[in-house]
């Protein structure tokens, strides 16, 4: 194990912790921006430090293609190659393959696919994935899992879950740097609580440094989503970090943190920036919209970032989607927003003000009190009273019946 996880504060299931990794001392809950090809699009490492990023994600599939893991190894590892002094996490490469390559196929051996470079048949095995990740050198590496979309039903889900458990042993055996890199297992099992439970038990038996909840954030309905997260966080060990992969929207992060998750990653903040959408307490602000052309306010008057302190919506409106600088400035703000959210989650839990934070968050996002039902249900399970900021469910029902 190459990490330490110390819980500094709690509120029911939510926890604020110190996660000590080989390259950085992190505070959870935390959001990890995705730097697919060894860079966060349009931002320098200096800016990422300024914003407060603690861990960055690199995509194994992309890096193995270019510049190759061997080259990264020769150059001293990804930290040195991209000059990022803080923590890195790499995924296994499996998910990208399955989602990016329509001819990918999963067998017991591994993921077979056609090389996008020359069309040759290739195979990514658990062993190969770990070897690639060993060469890249991230603080946290992910086991190769058999991931299926949550929208799929039938025996495939069970097959994938058991295969994930068989593969974790192969990953563990192949892992050459357990003292420098933390191998996280990934809980699969679709939306089936029985399968999820078997998977959790199986992974926990292997005593891994940390656990991820995978197979979500793929189109399932929100009600199913939160229930899987709740179930997993309830049964995963307290003393180890829990990482919900592919999450996501600020609202989802707040809910999952209330339920006891610690780490998140998603392309959403940076991707949506490139389309001209800014993250704000109310939700999103579409800077491309014509109404922004004369708006001399900052994106968010409560945001302390360089962008909100210096630029108006009107100016950003003329840049976004047209000039590279627009992408840069908006990505900067959106990531700052996510880092600030992480900081707020951490500090509000430690200061014993977590429910107030959640209510304040929901109030800003749903000023009419129309907090979605799934959020209300999840908060109830999390033991957070949000009655001050949401219209109670039965009065919603009354409105419905009286308006006939």
């Amino acid at each position: 194990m190459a990490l330490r996880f110390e819980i500094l504060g709690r509120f029911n299931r939510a926890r604020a912790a110190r996660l000590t990794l080989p390259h950085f001392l992190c505070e959870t809950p935390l959001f990890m921006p995705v730097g697919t090809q060894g860079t966060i699009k349009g931002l320098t490492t200096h800016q990422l430090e300024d914003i407060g990023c603690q861990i960055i994600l690199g995509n194994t599939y992309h890096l193995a293609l270019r510049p190759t893991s061997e080259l990264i190894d020769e150059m001293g590892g990804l930290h040195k190659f991209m000059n990022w002094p803080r923590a890195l996490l790499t995924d296994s490469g499996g998910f990208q393959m399955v989602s990016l390559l329509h001819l990918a196929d999963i067998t017991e051996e591994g993921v077979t696919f056609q090389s996008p470079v020359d069309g040759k048949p290739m195979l990514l095995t658990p062993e190969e994935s770990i070897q690639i990740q060993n060469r890249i050198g991230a603080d946290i590496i992910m086991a190769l899992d058999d991931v299926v979309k949550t929208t799929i039903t039938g025996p495939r889900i069970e097959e994938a879950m058991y295969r994930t458990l068989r593969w974790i042993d192969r990953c563990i055996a192949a892992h050459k740097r357990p003292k420098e890199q933390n191998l996280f297992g990934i809980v699969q099992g679709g939306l089936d609580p029985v399968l999820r439970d078997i998977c959790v038990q199986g992974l926990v038996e292997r005593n891994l440094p940390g656990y991820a909840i995978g197979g979500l954030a793929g189109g399932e309905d929100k009600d199913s989503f939160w229930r899987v997260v709740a179930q997993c966080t309830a049964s995963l060990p307290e003393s180890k970090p829990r990482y919900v992969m592919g999450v996501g929207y600020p609202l989802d992060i707040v809910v999952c943190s209330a339920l006891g998750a610690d780490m998140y990653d998603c392309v959403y903040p940076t991707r949506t920036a490139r389309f001209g959408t800014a993250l704000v307490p109310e939700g999103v602000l579409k800077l491309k919209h014509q109404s922004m052309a004369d708006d001399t306010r900052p994106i968010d008057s409560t945001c302390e970032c360089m962008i909100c302190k210096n630029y108006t919506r009107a100016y950003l409106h003329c840049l976004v989607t047209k000039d590279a600088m627009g992408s840069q400035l908006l990505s900067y703000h959106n990531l700052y927003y996510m880092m600030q959210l992480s900081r707020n989650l951490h500090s509000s839990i430690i200061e014993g003000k977590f429910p107030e934070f959640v209510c304040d968050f929901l109030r800003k996002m749903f000023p009419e009190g129309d907090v979605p039902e799934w959020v209300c249900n999840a908060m109830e399970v999390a033991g957070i009273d949000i009655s001050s900021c949401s219209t109670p469910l039965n009065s919603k029902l009354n409105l419905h019946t009286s308006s006939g």
Partner: protein
Amino acid sequence: MPPAERREDSIDGAVAQTQVHSEQESTNMKFAIKAWCKSGRARVGLLQLKSSSSLGQGGPPAKEIEIETPALLLTTRKGLPAFISPDHLSFLPSPDSRLLQFSPMHFMEGPNSKTISNIGGVHRLLGLQGYGFVAVPRDSILSLPESYSSNKNGASFETPCGRFLVKPLEYMKMITSMKPDLWVSLADEVPASVTAKRNKTSVDRTITWLDDCISLNPRERALFGSVVGGCSVEERQRCAQEVAKRNVSGYYIGGFGLGDSIDERSTFLHAVTDSLPKEKPRQVCGLGLPEEVLQGIAAGIDLFDSTYIYHLTLEGFALIFPLNGKCKQHVSDPQLCATAGDYTKINLKATVYRKDASRIVEGCKCYTCQNHTKAYINHLLNVHEMLAQILLEIHNTHHYLSFFRLIREAITEGKFEEFRQNH
């Protein structure tokens, strides 16, 4: 007030108005020459700008920017560099990197003049209160003079959002709302290939529009009068002499870099600079390459904009020419040949840099060289990541600014001609 009436006023009142102007036209700008080179044309100067962002706004006290010339104006897209964000801009050498050039036509797509006024002008718009902004109609990337459609009413420009005919009054509205530190009068810039008649017309129009601009000039902002005249010594001289009669703070020399040849250019440059008062600053557009800059400085130009850096950056080139004055390395360097580079620049896309852990230029103090290797930038270029352009624009700008600094030192030490030979 309808434009026609205003024109009457300005022509009748021109003399009176220029008299009033002479006391106030340099409220925010001072220029003084510090050193001359032996030939008597190249000079080192000091340009002082009182940052006008707070003039009349009741804001924080005005900042002063002091820049030594010859100086490079950084090119911008809509006021900010193409790739260097404001925080990284502040890491570039200062005050060398504090002069930015933009064209008001960058903002044809918005924000409109009223909104820019509400925000408080370009300094506030761009969050760069400590910087000097020079407004020039012509911009070699986003606002290209399109002389076929220009007419007596205005100059035509080709922009990414279409072709626009810009009249002096309209131009002045933009300038008034944007509040740049220095601005250039509207000019009819024509390519080298036009007829003598069209060339003469361009001079007449440019002078008329200068008078229009002067009559509408917001007094606290320094105006540079435009001098055109194409490839005709007579027209160049005529224009320069006419403009020299007007009370302006400096001169903008237009019409170069539009199909004229570098070999013949010195003649026309001298025709202009020899007809202009020595004590006022001269700016030129379209002389971007190192040899063109040297040519311009030798003719007595003080301020340059250049798209050289932008184009190098887009194509993956990084400047490496030695800054110590000793230039010509063996051109037969196999590594350089293999990379489509030469002794001034390297192309970081070349496979030879895949594993090169060295800096672009050893000892370079720019953010890029202090933090990243050729190998990393090679990777970024190969996977088409924006960070490649960011890092390259930073380095190239830093390097080119250092080039200008060396030139100024050479002039001050009386070694400019020697320096020019070596480059």
